[in-house]
Each structure stands twice: as structure tokens, then as C-alpha cells.
């Protein structure tokens, strides 16, 4: 076989590979959305779930997913941005900085189940809290921190040096410069990164199974007192999220309409993640346009 035909065959194979990848995605999305969308109804979204009977909804799980995400970000974002500021503005090249970078690398590569186990050890057993939203949020913070630190550090580093120098040369302290000049400039990129990270956190389950648990107590949505036991805002209660729910109905559950509930929940999950991604893109480009098109 001469090289010309080998080249042509090879090109064909590459086209085939690309096609396979596209088909995989299309197939997956088609299955989820086609099967799932028909199971999503207002009832599905607002009814409580059932462990045994058909017709259960995902109301509590949906709320839990968003609430756990919110609490996680409440903790992880300030920590992550602080870490990013340190790495970009204060860290001197040397042993300590290398150690911090290695730590971030380690945290980033831990499987989520290992983080879940750590959460179980620390935030469920050691503290005696049992399964709680806070425990889940703390576990997810560990999971999320490396991403936010990296995004913050990159964003801060890409703020032009001239801006920082201009502020310092006017007699403004380093920290004030960071607060009022550098962070506002870096903010769009950081925000985009946070929204993308939110998408990942929203779909995470392995870390939550052993920390936020597989159940939700009876909730009274009219009760906004975070310290009350029946309030959905109470962070010391167990909370099964949407992703965990999909897993548990398929492996532990006994409900007869497992397929319908799972596909509906999966569709909701995917759509939410899609919305997060699109939102991140849209905000990123909007702010980018606002900053560069000031003429």
C-alpha cells in the first residue's frame, strides 16, 4: 500500500473518530432529554419524593441541590479567592510556595469518593453532627477549592502590571490596590470560573452520599427560620441532592417507576448544568465587551 492511500485511509479513520465522538454526545443527550423531558411536569418538580410508591417527585432534592451549592460557594469562594490572591500577589518563589502548589494539586486529583470518606470521618463522625448540609458543603469545598484558587490566581495574574503600578505609585497600599484595582479587573474571569465550577458541584454525588446523606426530613417551606428543625434553610439537617437521588433510586430504592423518576431527574440535572455553562459564557462575553468597548 503506498503512502498516498495510507494517508487517505488514515484521514478517513480520523473523520470516523470525530464522528464517533459526536455521535456519543448526541446519543447521550438524545436519550436523556427525549426520555426525561416527558417525565418533567410541574408536579414532578414540586412533589416530595417517595421511597416506595410510584409518582414521587423531586421537590426536596431539587431544593437541596441548589441550597448545598449555595452554602458550598459561600465557603469556597472567599477561601479560594483569598488563596488565589496569596499565590498571585504575596507568594515568593521558594519552598513554601511549591508546597502550597503541591497541596492544591493533590486536592485537585483526589477522587470524589475519597473526599466523601474524609467528610464522613471529619464532618459526620468526629464532630458528631451526623449527615448535614454543612458537612456536605465542607466536603464539596475541599473538592472545589483547587479550581477556584487556580481561576483566581490566573485572573489576578492577567491583570496588567501597569494598573497595579499606577495605583501603588499614587501612594496606595498593596492590599488596598488589590481590593480596589486588581480584584475588580479580575472579577469577570473569576466569576466565569465560579459559575463553571458550580456546574460541576451541582452534579456531584459521590462526595455527598456519606456527608449530606440519603434522606431529607420533612420540610416546611414556609418556615424560614434557619435554626428550626423543619426549615429547609437549616444547615444541620441531612439533605439528599438530585444527583444522589438518581443514584439511590437506582441502587437502593424500591419504587416501581424508577426509570421515569431517574430520567426526569437526569434531564433536570443536565439542563441545569447546561444553563450554568451558558450563563458563564454569556456573562463572560458580556463583561468582556463592556470593558473593551468603552470607546
Amino acid at each position, binding site marked *: 500500500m503506498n*503512502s498516498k492511500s495510507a*494517508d487517505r485511509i488514515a*484521514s478517513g*479513520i*480520523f*473523520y470516523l*473518530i*470525530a464522528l*464517533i*465522538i*459526536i455521535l*456519543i*454526545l448526541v446519543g447521550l443527550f438524545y*436519550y436523556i432529554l427525549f426520555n426525561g423531558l416527558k417525565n418533567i411536569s410541574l408536579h414532578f418538580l414540586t412533589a416530595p419524593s417517595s421511597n416506595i410508591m410510584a409518582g414521587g417527585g423531586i421537590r426536596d432534592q431539587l431544593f437541596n441541590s441548589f441550597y448545598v451549592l449555595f452554602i458550598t460557594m459561600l465557603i469556597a469562594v472567599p*477561601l*479560594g479567592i*483569598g*488563596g488565589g490572591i*496569596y*499565590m498571585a*500577589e*504575596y507568594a515568593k518563589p521558594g519552598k513554601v510556595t511549591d508546597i*502550597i502548589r503541591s*497541596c492544591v*494539586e*493533590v*486536592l485537585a*486529583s*483526589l*477522587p*470524589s*469518593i*475519597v473526599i466523601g*470518606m*474524609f467528610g464522613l470521618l*471529619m464532618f459526620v463522625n468526629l464532630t458528631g453532627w451526623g449527615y448535614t448540609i454543612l458537612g456536605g458543603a465542607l466536603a464539596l469545598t*475541599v473538592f472545589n*477549592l483547587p479550581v477556584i*484558587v487556580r481561576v483566581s490566581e490566573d485572573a489576578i495574574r492577567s491583570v496588567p502590571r501597569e494598573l497595579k503600578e499606577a495605583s501603588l505609585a499614587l501612594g496606595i*497600599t*498593596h*492590599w488596598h490596590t488589590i481590593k480596589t484595582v486588581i480584584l475588580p479587573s479580575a472579577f469577570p474571569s473569576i466569576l466565569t470560573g465560579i459559575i463553571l465550577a458550580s*456546574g460541576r458541584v*451541582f*452534579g*456531584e*454525588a*459521590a462526595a455527598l*452520599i*456519606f456527608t449530606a446523606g440519603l434522606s431529607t426530613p420533612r420540610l416546611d417551606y414556609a418556615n424560614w427560620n434557619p435554626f428550626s428543625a423543619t426549615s429547609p434553610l437549616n444547615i444541620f439537617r441531612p439533605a439528599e441532592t438530585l*444527583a*444522589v437521588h438518581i*443514584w439511590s433510586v*437506582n*441502587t437502593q430504592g424500591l419504587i416501581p417507576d424508577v426509570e421515569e423518576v431517574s*430520567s426526569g431527574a*437526569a434531564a433536570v*440535572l443536565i439542563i441545569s*448544568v*447546561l444553563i450554568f455553562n451558558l450563563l458563564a459564557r454569556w456573562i463572560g462575553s458580556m463583561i468582556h465587551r463592556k470593558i473593551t468597548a468603552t470607546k
Partner: protein
Amino acid sequence: MSEYTFTPYNVIRGDWCIMEKMVSAKDRLLKSGNNRMDGELRGKILVILCAVIMISATIAITIFLGTKGLQSFIKNGVSLIEFITSTNWNPTNQAKPEYGTLPFIFGSFAVTFLSALVAAPLGIGGAIFMTEIAPSWGRNILQPVIELLVGIPSVVYGFIGLSVLVPFIRENVGGLGFSLLSGTIVLSVMILPTVTTIATDSMSSLPKTLREGSYALGATRWQTIRKVLIPAALPTLLTAIVLGMARAFGEALAVQMVIGNVKDLPSSLLDASATLTTIITLNMGHTTYGSVENNTLWSMGLILLVMSFAFILLIRYLSSRRKM
């Protein structure tokens, strides 16, 4: 509270900012307690605290999981050798409990390697497609596809595997459907984006002169790819594959839903199996905290932790070789 205060209009000088120059140079310029440095210190402490928390978290994870994982050997007297090499897993047997986790270790490595075997050609092929075959439009199509694949949560992969793949294999290929094969396929799709993204970065950062030189010698595109580009990119391509493997090794839920979770060593691709992650996921919930069986689960978690470190070291080694 700064040394730069404007006075009202000063009649004498017809000027309005003379006050601060009356303060001596020493008071103005030397460091002292009431210069505006405490905000500076507060900020610095705040961010250093964040850095410290990150280090502590990593250390805490290692120490806590390490100690807990060693409990079964230290406190319960489980033999390490048996743990790693025996194929009999029978922790609940009252008379003769056995703690051999080899089937699970084998399962973990098996799905990892097999899925890498599938994902590597697909991922590298996709990367080459984007950078060499269709450089102008390939990326515009495949890149969003890859990003969407990344966005799908692992439970959804598991669910689709369960409802589509398992019955398909059961009816068309054989066995129960719950098998190593299902686990492999699901994992391959899951690690595909990782491999593709890094492989694409790798291929696109090759210097243009490499391609130009090869074409100038009359080589075809395939010859250039095969003989020049892939060897040049090999270290990073290997890194891409290793990263994919690391991800596969640690994946729990998606695999657990399709692999069958039996405690016997599989003898074929179609046999059901189990991995370290799946056993932990299944059993952690219904074993009592502190019991021997529970402790062995933590020991398996320790193996996962150690493997994560091993993968990191492997990747660092590969990256440093590239620099030569």
C-alpha cells in the same frame, strides 16, 4: 486619620493645602504606628490564612484517612498480605472471616487499563482531527462537544449505562449485562474528554516548523503525523492518558451502577466484577462504624489515596522528562 488633611482655604498663603507640609518630614515619612499600615497587615493575614487552610486540609486528609485506614491492620489484626493478595472476601463470616481484596484491586486496575485502551485512540484521534485534519473548523465542532461531555454528571452516565448499556450487552453479547465490559465502556466515555483536551493542547503546542519541515521533505499528512508529530508529542500524550487513568481509577458511582458488584475475581470481560470504589460505596452505609468490616473499607480508601499520590508522582515524572 491620615497625614494628608486639607484645611479650609488658608488666607495667608491663598492656598489650601499647606497644613501637611508643616508636619515634619520625619513624621510624614518614617514608619510608625499610625501610618495606614494596619489595613495592609489585616489583608495580608487574611490571605495567608487561606493558604494555610489549604495546606492544613491536605495534611488533615492524609493524616486522618491514613490513620483510619490503618486501623484494620493495627487494631483488628488483619494481615496486610492477606488483604492485598487473597481473593476471598468474606468479612461477615463468623467462624473464619476473610479479608482478601484482590478481586477489587484487580477490578479497579482492569477497568482503568481497559478504559484507557479504548479512550486513548479515540481521544488522541479526536485531538489530531482538531489540530491536523480539520484545523480550521474541527475545533469549533468538537470542542463544544467535549465540553458538553465533561458537563454530564457521573450519576447520569451511570444511569444511562444501567438502562441502556446493560440490557444491550445482556441481550446482544452475553452474560448478565452487569460486567467488566459495561464498566469499561462507561468509563471510557467518561475519561474521553480529559484525554482529548490534554492531547489537543499537546498537539497544538508543537512548533509549526516540525510540520513544515516534514511536508517540505514530501511526506504525506499521515506520515507526518505518525513519524514526526506523535513521537514529538508523546510525553504529553502519555500524560493525557495517565490523567485519564487517574480519573477512571477513582470513579465510583457510574461504575458501581453497571459493574455488578460481586466479590469474585472475574474470568472474562462479561463477568460481573467490583472495584475498590464500588465496594466502598455499597458497603459503607450498612456497616457499623468501628467494626472490622467497616475498618477494612477505610483501608481500601487508603489504597485509593495512595494510588492518587502515585498517579501524581507518575505525571510529574512524565512532565519532567519532557523538559529534557
